[in-house]
Structures are given as C-alpha cells and as structure tokens.
C-alpha cells in the first residue's frame, strides 16, 4: 500500500502552522493503514505465497512448486464434491432468500402503520450469531426429540427409513450421475437455516431500494391504466434491478464464506453431505494441516470473492465525490 502524501486543502503555505498541523492527515491515517496492512493485506499476500510453495518433508523448508498445489487440489474428489455441495447450496439459498425477501419487502412497502414494529421483529434473527442460529436449528432436528424430527423421519416423504434424524441420514442416490442431486436433507435444512438468518438483512436492502422508486411514476402509471402487476413488472422491477444484483452478490459472498453455521448445525455431516468449500478449507488447513493445499483453496476462494466484489462495485458505480 502506497504511503499517502499529506496534503492540505489550501496550497498556499501558512507560516504559523506547525509541522504537526501540516502532516495531520498522515498521522490520522497511519494507525488505520498499519493495522489493515498487518491484519488484512499481509495475510492475503502470505496466503498467496504459501499457495505456490510446499513444505519439504524432512527439512520443513518451503520450496517453490508452482501450480502444483492447485493441480493437487482440483484433482481430489473431496474438492469436487464440496464444490458441488457449495453450488447446490448457493443456488437454493440465494433463490429462496431473494424470493422471500422481495415478497416481505413488497408487503412492508405498503403503508402499514405498524411497519417499524414489524421490521424490528423480523430483524431479530440477523443479530444472532451463526453458531447460536445453527444450534437453534439443530435443536429442531436432534434425533427423536427435535420438533421437526418426526417430519424428517417420515418414510413417505424421504423414502425409506434412513435414520432417525437428518443429522444422520445420508443423501438419496443421485439421479444426475456425479452431481449429488437431490442433495441430502441436511443440506436443504442448512439452506433453510442460513436463509432464515440472512433474510432480514436482504429484506432491508430491497425495502430501501423499493423506497427510492418515485411514487409519482407509479401514480402516473396507474392513471395510464397499469395494473398492479404491470407497474411492478415495468416500473418497479427495472428500477430495483441493480439493488437485486448487489443483494445477490452479497448473498453469494456470505454463502461461500459462512462456516459458523455448518460447524454448529451439521459439522459437515452426515458423512460429507454438508461439507461446503469453506468447511473443506477448515478441515484441510486446520485439521489436516496441509498448508499448501489450504492456501491454494484460499487463493481460489479469494479470487472468486474478488470477482464478486468488483462486479458489485461496477454495479453500484462507487462514485465517491
């Protein structure tokens, strides 16, 4: 990160100002820059460095191995499986959350007197931690005694009695060959729980966008004879589309990176049915201690995230004055 040249708003030198006053912006920026460089920038670069290295057995030294780690990672079955889980999870999670959030936001957009109260109540799940949310949903499906356990143990719905809880029952045989579809009930449950947690935030974003749709345009639309559906399709939707896209990127980011809920809800199981990329990263890097492989996966995930972030920036067109 480049050092910032201190600059004052006025370029005419004012003799009586002290050196401290002239360099004030630099001193104000310094702590933030130092901490961010140490905690965010350095680890990112170090991870990238690790991803092209391998620890030499015996000596424990790092040796340059080029893209070896990446090749190793892409060829493991575990990676392919968790990539598939992640894609399935993200698809269901994003679609379900966006649909629900749009519906709730449209309800809240109507002028209801109690709207602030409803928004506050709907928002409670968002302030819970991933771990607590995971445990709460886990308690629904613990073997036998969970409120939803009888539902998931129902052989008519989930084909044969494959265990007493979705925390233990494996996925049905795949109908799409290599792609694990349909996913294990536990993965669907994880989707549902994650969607519940993020739904308030998504709703708020969409609601904020809906409120920027000018009332006059909608009114003139209705004077011209547009039905409710038409004015949504041709006025509201085009106007909130950028926000919907940003929201989608936010959801994808959160979905790829979220791991707390996997930990507390399913622990990656049953088997590896809910092992998504972020959980795989944990198990490679921190349980199996294969640093090179974990760094390669980290780098891939960071790249993916960067693409998403840059697209979001493009869409919002961050134009700072």
């Amino acid at each position, binding site marked *: 990160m480049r050092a910032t040249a201190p600059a004052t708003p006025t370029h005419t030198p004012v003799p009586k100002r002290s050196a401290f006053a002239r360099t004030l912006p630099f001193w104000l920026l310094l702590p933030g820059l130092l901490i961010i460089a140490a905690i965010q920038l350095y680890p990112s670069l170090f991870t990238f460095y690790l991803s092209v290295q391998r620890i030499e057995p015996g000596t424990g030294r790092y040796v340059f191995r080029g893209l070896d780690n990446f090749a190793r990672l892409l060829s493991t079955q575990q990676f392919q499986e968790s990539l598939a889980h992640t894609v399935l999870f993200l698809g269901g999670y994003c679609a379900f959350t966006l649909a629900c959030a749009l519906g709730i936001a449209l*309800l809240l957009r109507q002028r209801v007197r109690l709207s602030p109260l409803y928004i506050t109540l709907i*928002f409670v799940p968002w302030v*819970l931690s991933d*771990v607590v949310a995971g445990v709460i949903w886990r308690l629904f499906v613990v073997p036998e005694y969970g409120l939803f356990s009888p539902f998931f143990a129902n052989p008519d719905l989930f084909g044969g009695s494959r265990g007493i809880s979705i925390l233990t029952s494996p996925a049905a045989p795949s109908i799409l060959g290599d792609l694990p579809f349909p996913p294990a009930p536990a993965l669907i449950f994880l989707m549902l729980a994650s969607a519940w947690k993020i739904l308030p935030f998504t709703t708020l974003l969409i609601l904020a966008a809906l409120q920027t749709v000018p009332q006059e345009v909608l009114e003139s639309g209705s004077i011209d004879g547009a039905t409710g559906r038409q004015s949504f399709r041709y006025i509201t939707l085009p106007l909130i589309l950028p926000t919907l896209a940003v929201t989608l990127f936010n959801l994808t980011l959160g979905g790829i990176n979220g791991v707390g809920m996997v*930990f*507390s809800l399913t622990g990656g199981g049953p088997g590896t049915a809910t092992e998504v990329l972020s959980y795989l990263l944990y198990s490679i890097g921190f349980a199996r201690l294969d640093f090179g492989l974990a760094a390669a996966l980290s780098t891939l995930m960071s790249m993916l995230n960067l693409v998403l972030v840059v697209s979001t920036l493009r869409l919002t067109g961050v134009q700072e004055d």
Partner: protein
Amino acid sequence: MATTVKSLTPSPFHLPKRARSVLLNLALILVCMLMLFPVFSTLVLSFKQQSDVRSLPPRLFPCNTATDTFDLAACRFFGEGYERVFLAKPSPNALLGFQITGRIFSTYLPNTVLYAFATAFFVTIISAMSAYVYSRYRFRGRRALMIALLVLAGVPVLTMLLALQQTANGIRRIIPGYEERIFMIIVYVGLELPFAIWVVKGFFDTIPKELEEAALIDGCSRFGALVRVVAPLATPGLMSIFLLAFVNVWNEFIVNYLLMSKQNLRGAMYGVFDFIAQSLSSYNALAAACVLVMVPVIVVFLFTRRVFFRAMVDGAITG
C-alpha cells in the same frame, strides 16, 4: 393511491381499504411469527425439565396431561437447563455465597465482553480518524486507497486465518510471555476497520464543511476542529459503528476459535459450540446456553435499532 404498488400482495385489488389493511397486517404478523418461531421455541425449550425434553412425540409446550394434549394449567417450567449452564457451587468466600463454575460464565463470556468492548472502542476511534481524512482532504492515491479498502473488506476472513495463525505462532515463539488477548483484539480491529471507515466517511460527508471552517477562522486548530466540532456532530454515526463492531465481535466464532490456542482465551460462541458436545441429550441446557448468549445482543439491538439500520443500509449500499 396506495393501490398502485401492491402487485405481489395477496390480490386485494378491489377490496375496501379496511379489509386490505387487515389482510396486510395479518400477512405481516404471520411473517413475524415465522421469523421469531425458532427463537421462541428455543426459549420454551430452555425452561423445560429433562423429562419433558424427552417427550415422544416431541411437543412445543410442556403442557400435556394424561388426558389432554394441551392444558394451560398443567404447564411445567423449570430452571433446570440454566442450572446446568451456571453450575453454581456454594462458596463461602464469594460475594453472593456461591460461585459460578460453568465455563460459559466463568471464562468465555468475560473474554467476549473484553474483546467486544475493546474492539468496538478502537474501531470507532481509528475509523473516525481515517474517515475524517478521506472525507475532508484531497490527495493523490485517495481514491485508490478507498477502493483498496472495499476490496480488502471482500476478502473472506477464513482465507486469511491460515496466515494469521502462522503469524500468531511466530509471535508466540519470539516473545514468550506476551498477552494473546491483545493480538486477538488487534485482529478484530483490523477485520472490522475497512467497512467501518466507509460507513463513518459517509456520516462525515453529511456534516457541512462550513461549520469547521467557521471554527478554523475563530482560531481553532484543524485537530481541535475535528475533536470539538466534527466529532460531536458525528456522535450518532460513531455510536452505530461502535454497536455494529460490538455485536459483530460478540457473535464471532471462527477467528477466535482458530487463533486462540488456549481454551481459556476463547469467547462465548466457542462456549456454545463446546457445549453441543458436552450437553449430549440435555437439550434444555444447550437451549439455555443459547438464550444466555443471545439475549444481550437482542436487547442491545431492540434499544438501538434505528442506529443499527442506519449503519447497515449506508454500508451495504456503498460496500
């Protein structure tokens, strides 16, 4: 007029205004109930006694009798789950005559309180300092720095943990007796800063420059103007950043879990995670642990919701 925007509501197009409003409220109440149900059922579960936890078929309320499935008079609520979390033991030396030996309360929650307060404090101050410069000065590289902040905020924490853990191990080797809690707080501050700087810059941008200029003309120094004029006006915004950082750190699990090698330095979320394995089938105790660690943040949120929404919508739309 309000009939124009209701496309996806359950088609109350030609209903009278009154009926429409009733339908709308019913729909929203239903949504609220669905969203709050998991929290509510956990609360109920935490007050059940062990024999009701293990009732088959599972019941939401422990209110069944031999003849009825639900009888309000027969409801049985106990503090058994909470006792298992607190594990209070009588101790003559303690202030109240007993000592809490449950690890969530004796170890993990105090750690979390420390991490959350310290992080929120430093994030607020440092982000205010940086954001002031980004908002008021123009210099080369300013735009690049701001974009870099956003990009860094988008790098997933998990991918940096490996390197941070190596750093922590390195520091531990070099400085034998160093305080790991300080490292934890610095990490949290670094992770929260990029987003916080953007949000606070947004708040500063809304404060008119003329106020500061007036102070400068009256002989105030630039730093004095920041402390005396800008900071007080930005207090609501800074408070929202404080709260957001506080709640984020309170709820954080994975960074703390992987960076702190010693159990007694970990926070409340680790306590809950650890409790999953410990409590086996005492689901009432597990629920009680959840209730105890989530109630503080829910209370903070309910009292300060306006401040919360503001920081989040501002932050989410720019970043």
